[in-house]
């Protein structure tokens, strides 16, 4: 099996996105056990981790989700790959729904083409397995390579591809540094020639110089194999470097979606503006960082109306009662009454 996957030809169907996320939502039940609820007279407690999230990702595109902790980024990522089932809405990848029951067999074939890279390379690799077994697992699981020599050859190729020595394959995860472990995680994700990779904070646990190595590697691999990325991060500078389009999440809602350059040049939503203002300035332009008041509210008990209104400088009466719907503002899509009414 050749390492160079037949790149999905973007020219054939330029209009059809690879990934479509439609009205995705997830509610977690965080109530106490039934008996406690009955004896203590407590109501059910529901946590809305994501609500009405809609976006699409074109082939060979990098779409990024940014937001603070608790904004629902990782929940959306897990729903996209099918690790958790959505409460509402659906994810359609290359025409196959990730939740419709009747498409089970198509979905099984689709799984090979979707992979995920996790944040913590210390937790996502089995400490009792050698690197080569970790990378070979998807090959065996999907029956891509059967014979031992085939597998060994392919693992060697993959290790070289991510900048490791094939001889390192016999080592255990603890013998590698954080950056090297993340390279192993990438090699494992690439093992079965996927088209779509979901990366959940892939460099947050790494030092900046190692982060640069991993980001460069991910870009090279994207160019070489025509990969599509869903890139989750809280680091705006990393997102700007990697993404074509960006979605900003706040309390489970996608508040703004825009092309990367546009978002950094002309942020629309007050929350996006706030996030950009809060980033430390490395260029020493003398730009004053504006510390925002308040913190992200508890998602179990979110504010009514627009979830951002308690911290928003341009909030008014309508924001407190009515949840804003997505509207087009130039090339961006924004959920904000103030933007809709042209007040900011």
């Amino acid at each position, binding site marked *: 099996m050749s390492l160079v996957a037949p790149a999905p030809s973007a020219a054939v169907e330029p209009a059809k996105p690879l990934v479509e996320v439609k009205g995705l939502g997830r509610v977690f039940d965080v109530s106490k056990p039934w008996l406690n609820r009955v004896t203590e007279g407590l109501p059910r407690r529901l946590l809305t981790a994501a609500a009405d999230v809609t976006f699409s990702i074109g082939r060979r595109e990098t779409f990024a989700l940014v937001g603070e902790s608790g904004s629902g980024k990782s929940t959306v990522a897990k729903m996209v790959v099918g690790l958790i089932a959505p409460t509402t809405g659906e994810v359609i990848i290359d025409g196959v729904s990730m939740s419709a029951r009747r498409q089970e067999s198509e979905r099984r074939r689709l799984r090979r083409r979707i992979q995920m890279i996790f944040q913590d390379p210390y937790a996502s690799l089995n400490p009792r397995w050698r690197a080569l077994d970790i990378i070979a697992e998807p090959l065996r699981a999907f029956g891509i390579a059967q014979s031992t020599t085939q597998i060994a050859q392919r693992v060697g190729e993959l290790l070289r591809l991510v900048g490791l020595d094939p001889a390192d394959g016999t080592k255990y995860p603890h013998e590698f*540094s954080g950056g090297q472990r993340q390279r192993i995680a990438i090699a494992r994700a690439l093992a079965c020639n996927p088209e779509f990779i979901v990366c959940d904070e892939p460099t947050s646990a790494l030092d900046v110089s190692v982060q*640069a190595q991993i980001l460069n590697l991910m870009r090279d691999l994207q160019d070489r194999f025509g990969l599509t990325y869903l890139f989750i991060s809280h680091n705006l*500078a990393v997102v700007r470097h990697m993404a074509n389009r960006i979605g900003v999440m706040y309390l489970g809602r996608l508040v703004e979606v825009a092309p990367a350059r546009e978002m950094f040049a002309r942020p629309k939503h007050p929350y996006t503006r706030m*996030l*950009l203002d809060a980033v*430390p*300035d*490395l260029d020493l332009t003398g730009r004053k960082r504006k510390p925002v008041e308040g*913190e992200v509210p508890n998602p179990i008990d979110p504010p009514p109306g627009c979830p951002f209104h308690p911290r928003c400088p341009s909030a008014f009466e309508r924001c407190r009662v009515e949840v804003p719907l997505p509207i087009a503002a130039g090339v961006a899509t924004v959920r904000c009454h103030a933007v809709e009414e042209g007040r900011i």
Partner: protein
Amino acid sequence: MTPVLSVQNLRVEFPTRRGVLTAIDDISFDIAPGEVLGVVGESGAGKSITGTAIIGLIEPPGHIAGGQVLLRGSRIDNLPPDEMRRIRGKRIGMVFQDPLTSLNPLYRIGDQLTETITTHTNLSGSQARQKALSLLTEVGIPAPEQRIDNYPHQFSGGMRQRVVLALALAAEPELVIADEPTTALDVSVQAQIIALLKRLCAQHGAAVMLITHDMGVIAETADRVAVMYAGRIAEIGPVRDVIKQPLHPYTKGLMGSIPSLTHDSDRLVQIPGSMPRLTAIPSGCPFHPRCPRAFTPCPTFRPELAPEQNSQVACWLYTPFPVAAAAE
């Protein structure tokens, strides 16, 4: 003017079964009154060990093997443990990365604050509580009269770090050592805490040693910055010079590897390899195996910090290479 803190040729060693590991190798720096010194470096550079060495909390068998630490001109590295305990909290305040681990979960935050205040000052219990209330107000905790009797778990991460700041400043210390104070926080809260740290230390006239891996935080907060690599200081100088015109090849690589919010770049600068482990620190300049500009002296001779422009840098590119030493 006497510096608040003066670290001179500090050396920290950890004896192990396989030999002695040198975590800090001959570092020297001063912090002037009211100054914020940033200490940056990647994991394993020795930033946190430097901080713990200054406050005398290195875990045995690690110990200070050479050099001295002076607080306002008097040595503190050789004090007996109980005298050192009186200095910690009183003259040196500390803020650590994870606010949940630096607060006792079983005590109300008011009790923790008043305990610190009564230990280090001669205020009575009710006066200490008043002082605790005013500290909580100062660090921006809303409704302090109600929150003072809450437990740490009832606060959010950002609020907890405010409480820790209040604790560190409770006894009006001359020096605050902040070890990654904002790393566990979200970016919007991080901005609040940094602004608060800066304002409070300026008001109280405290000098700050700010240890972080985040260049952005340094750029905003510090007056001077020391860049550490493999237990040594590679470069130290005014923050603007170090960030805008870094001299040491490691600092250059480090600055280039940070993605920018304003410039487009296809590829980030990449330093090959990774930070050496303590068991295998290269000879000569510890950075030479990864350095794009390494030449003859680097693998053999260790460069010392020497003045260059407004900074000091430990690199043979800037120091005349001793030809006599090479001939030996």
